[in-house]
């Protein structure tokens, strides 16, 4: 039997194949040869054959028939065999195969082998892919090796222990004794892997973390090691571009982060070294920046003093100016994480961030956009919006929807004037009109309706936009609606804000009819335009033309359109007496209840107070017609109104909440005074003389006992109460969410709804991550207005992600203590 061909020979041969078919043929031939060789239990060439099989496996061909052969190689006494055998095991076997367990005994023997390179192979394999059963069986061996004086083995044992702990967390305790003097090693390999092991233990177990903080005094030890690394002279063995062992430095910084988190003493102990690293690290190469980056992450996460935090943010600011795009990328990512907590510091770098909008890299652009929106406030709105609109014009389609939504939200919150607001909306609709989200159309219509004095200007601008372009559906829909509502203003040339255009009724109807017939219009748009035409029948004089159009569409193929036309037809005939009333101008619309988390930035101290107490917001009832609105504009009964601001996320929580509640409605619309037209960042509590921060000084409030509102699946939510001073009708509830499971709950959102007689305002949460194992709480303030002193009831909705799976739950809260609502 000729010897099987050598590995390199095979590789050379296969590479000469000119087609996929030719390659497959060669592979099949060789596999057949290998199979028969395996069947003959050929010991000599088993290693060679398995190596060839591994090559073919990398090309994508099946190699499962070699799995057992790997085991035989591992069991062999020859080092070559073991080397290939273990490699094969790591490539072909994984813990899903039963065959995998057969390795356990071999690994056990090899862990105790007299040659360290064999022991190394076994440790590597176990640490790379050992299953939980294997880890359980072999943990003792690993623990033994963790205590050896042989640093080659000790470092591998440490990482192997990390794997064991990940697979079988209960075994963590047994490795504790062996960690005792790991950090007194001089060998960098052992130091590095030991820090990794300690990190793993501290991250997994708060008890371990506490133990290492207090009993082992880990922080001073780490600080000492880090200091030595920085201060020591050139060490050729560990040097990377003038920096001594950057890998170790980074891992130490990361462990310090975990130790310093939520712990004042530890944070203080590491303050100096962090400042030292932050100021002394060489930044000309990536390696220095990698260390600085880790330092910044640590500073931001521990309880560092404000000077250090500012230093960290300034480092990020410098990163933003770096030529290296990778550095700019990590800077933007980090700034995005800190913008909520260190808002003012990040604001200082606003112009650099805005410049990044012009970057060529998609990821950098996206982050710059998100960060820019987070930085918009009442002071910089005009400048920022200019940049963002420019970005909207020129960015890739994948950004346009998010950017448009962001612009709308920012405009709604901070618009310096109604005219500016309308102009901004127009700009978005005309430049990115097709990318605007569907829910923008009703939101914009509501906005426009409520900006009463801008109607003439708005309809004129929209009309002009339609003349240019009817392809962008959201624009067309909003425009149709407006023309239907305010067409009379259009033809009478009433616009004050700009030069009124001269347009006749026929011209307007031409445009609307053009929408009906155009191929570009979607069925929804056609519906809008037909309705608009109909509305004009009470505003225009050329009713006959409208009647004709409507009757034509009575036989439209589109069922929706047909139905509308038929009903409108009926309005002309049998129900003509109702037509004027039905088609009247729409009243000011209420804002729908959006009880999701509000933006933190709303009152960052830099926005101007915006509420004019002269015209208190009128209270409108949903059923009222426009006539009643005229009555209420005098503004008699003033009821303090709690207005919630829009959540930052484009997908508003408002819609879902309406389902949750049925029909809670917040009454109140903006006064027709020159105040910003939309719910502003300052809640109208100002009308009551309440500051935006409720005063918690009411002694009576201290008597309200706290309660547990929800306790399920490890998530517990407690309510504590205060009375807002001086309005005793407002209860201020603080929720405290804690998590007793082993994993963090991320993307945590708390929503609440109350019955109709109450009004509710939800302020921003402290965070949206509830740390595992009760390591911290998320707090959020709810203000409930209860003028009728009814019994407080609440329905809450909780959403979060736990271990990668989304979780959602609804609950009723009925156990409020009587003092909270009486």
């Amino acid at each position: 039997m000729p010897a099987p061909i050598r590995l390199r020979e095979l590789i050379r041969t296969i590479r000469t194949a000119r087609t996929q078919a030719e390659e497959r043929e060669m592979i099949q031939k060789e596999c057949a040869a290998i199979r028969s060789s395996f069947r003959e239990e050929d010991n000599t060439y088993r290693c060679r054959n398995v190596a060839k099989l591994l090559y073919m496996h990398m090309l994508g061909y099946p190699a499962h028939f070699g799995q057992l052969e790997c085991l035989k190689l591992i069991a062999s006494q020859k080092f070559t065999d073991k080397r290939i055998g273990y490699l094969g095991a790591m490539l072909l076997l994984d813990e899903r195969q039963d065959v995998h367990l057969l390795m356990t005994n071999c690994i056990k023997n090899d862990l105790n082998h007299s040659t360290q390179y064999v022991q190394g192979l076994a440790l590597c394999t176990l640490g790379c892919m050992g299953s939980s059963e294997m880890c359980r069986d072999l943990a003792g061996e690993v623990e033994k090796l963790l205590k050896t004086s042989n640093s080659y083995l000790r470092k591998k044992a440490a990482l192997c222990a990390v794997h064991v702990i990940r697979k079988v967390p209960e075994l963590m305790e047994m490795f504790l004794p062996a960690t005792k003097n790991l950090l007194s090693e001089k060998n960098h390999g052992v130091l590095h892997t030991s820090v990794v092991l300690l990190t793993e233990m501290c991250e997994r177990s708060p008890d371990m973390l506490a133990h290492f903080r207090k009993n082992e005094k880990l922080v001073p030890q780490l600080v000492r090691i880090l200091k030595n690394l920085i201060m020591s002279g050139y060490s050729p063995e560990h040097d990377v571009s003038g920096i001594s062992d950057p890998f170790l430095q980074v891992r130490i910084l990361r462990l310090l982060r975990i130790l310093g988190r939520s712990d004042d003493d530890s944070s203080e102990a590491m303050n100096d070294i962090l400042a030292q690293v932050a100021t002394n690290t060489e930044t000309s190469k990536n390696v220095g920046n990698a260390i600085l980056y880790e330092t910044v992450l640590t500073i931001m996460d521990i309880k560092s003093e404000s000077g250090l935090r500012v230093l960290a943010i300034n480092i990020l600011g410098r990163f933003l100016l770096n030529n290296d795009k990778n550095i700019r990328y990590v800077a933007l990512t980090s700034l995005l994480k800190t913008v909520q907590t260190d808002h003012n510091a990040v604001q200082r770098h606003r112009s650099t961030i805005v410049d990044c909008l012009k970057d060529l890299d998609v990821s950098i652009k996206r982050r710059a956009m998100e960060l820019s929106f987070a930085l918009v406030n009442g002071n910089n709105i005009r400048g920022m919006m200019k940049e963002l609109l420019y970005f909207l014009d020129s960015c890739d389609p994948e950004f346009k929807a998010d950017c448009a939504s962001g612009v709308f939200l920012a405009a709604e919150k901070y618009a310096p004037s109604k005219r500016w607001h309308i102009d901004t909306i127009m700009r978005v609709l005309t430049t990115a009109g097709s990318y605007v989200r569907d829910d923008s159309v009703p939101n914009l219509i509501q906005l426009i309706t409520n900006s009463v004095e801008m109607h003439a200007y708005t309809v004129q601008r929209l009309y002009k936009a339609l003349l240019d372009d009817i392809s962008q559906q959201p624009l067309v829909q909003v425009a149709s609606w407006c023309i239907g509502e305010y067409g009379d203003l259009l033809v009478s040339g009433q616009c004050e804000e700009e030069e009124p255009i001269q347009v006749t009724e026929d011209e307007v109807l031409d445009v609307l009819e053009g929408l009906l017939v155009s191929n570009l219009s979607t069925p929804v748009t056609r519906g809008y335009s037909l309705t608009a035409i109909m509305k004009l029948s009470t505003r225009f004089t050329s009713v006959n033309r409208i009647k004709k159009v409507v009757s034509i569409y009575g036989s439209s193929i589109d069922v929706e359109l047909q139905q509308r036309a038929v009903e409108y037809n009926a309005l002309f005939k049998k129900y003509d007496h109702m037509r004027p009333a039905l088609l009247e101008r729409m009243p000011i619309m209420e804002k729908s209840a959006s009880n999701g988390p509000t933006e933190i930035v709303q009152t960052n101290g830099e926005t101007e107070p915006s509420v004019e107490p002269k015209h208190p917001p009128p209270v409108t009832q949903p059923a009222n017609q426009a006539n009643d609105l005229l009555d209420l504009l005098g503004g008699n009964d003033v009821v303090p109104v709690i207005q919630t601001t829009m959540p930052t996320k484009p997908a508003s929580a408002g819609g879902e909440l309406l389902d949750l509640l049925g029909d809670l409605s917040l009454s109140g619309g903006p006064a027709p005074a020159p105040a910003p037209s939309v719910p502003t960042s300052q809640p109208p509590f100002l009308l009551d003389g309440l500051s935006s921060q409720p005063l918690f000084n009411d002694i009576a409030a201290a008597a309200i006992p706290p309660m547990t509102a929800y306790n399920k699946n490890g998530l517990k939510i407690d309510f504590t109460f205060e009375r807002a001073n001086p309005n005793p009708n407002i209860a201020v509830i603080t929720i405290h969410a804690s998590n007793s499971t082993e994993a963090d709950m991320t993307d945590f959102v708390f929503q609440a709804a109350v019955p109709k007689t109450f009004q509710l305002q939800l302020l921003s949460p402290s965070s949206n991550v509830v740390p595992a194992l009760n390591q911290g709480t998320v707090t959020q303030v709810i203000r409930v207005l209860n003028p009728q002193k009814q019994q407080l009831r609440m329905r809450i909705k909780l959403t979060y992600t736990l271990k990668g799976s989304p979780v959602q739950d609804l609950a009723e809260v009925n156990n409020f203590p009587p003092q909270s609502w009486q």
Partner: protein
Amino acid sequence: MSSYNAFSLFLRMLSATHSFLSSSFMLLFSRQGKLRLQKWYVPLCDKEKKKITRELVQTVLARKPKMCSFLEWRDLKIVYKRYASLYFCCAIEDQDNELITLEIIHRYVELLDKYFGSVCELDIIFNFEKAYFILDEFLLGGEAQETSKKNVLKAIEQADLLQESGGIDEEELEE
């Protein structure tokens, strides 16, 4: 659930259970998308590995030269760098430091370079098992086990000697 959603959920569960790994996997591939090395630090079946590889390779190859070395791909952070005709691509976790991962990749390339002497793609094709051996002396379970270039190369050298001598030495080899 569409296949994308199911897959993405799978990957999120994956990264959730292996939440503290520095490196979930490392791939080396050519500019034509041919795989030259694959090291997986998380348990996945062959089918899943092939799917991830295929899609990730496509995504990375589509990147333009001016783009940065990091991208988000299905809930994972990907760090990649091209050296001559080979792409080195690592998947890391959310809290990992992308910049130091670039250094890890660079260190591996330096090790290959020292070992093979001005390494090129052909070296790795014809000596793939050695590329694995070197990687396994540098990283273990996704983390660096040795930060000294010299020590990694020395260990490989000794192991190679052991292999050549055809057996296992009686005496324990000192480091």
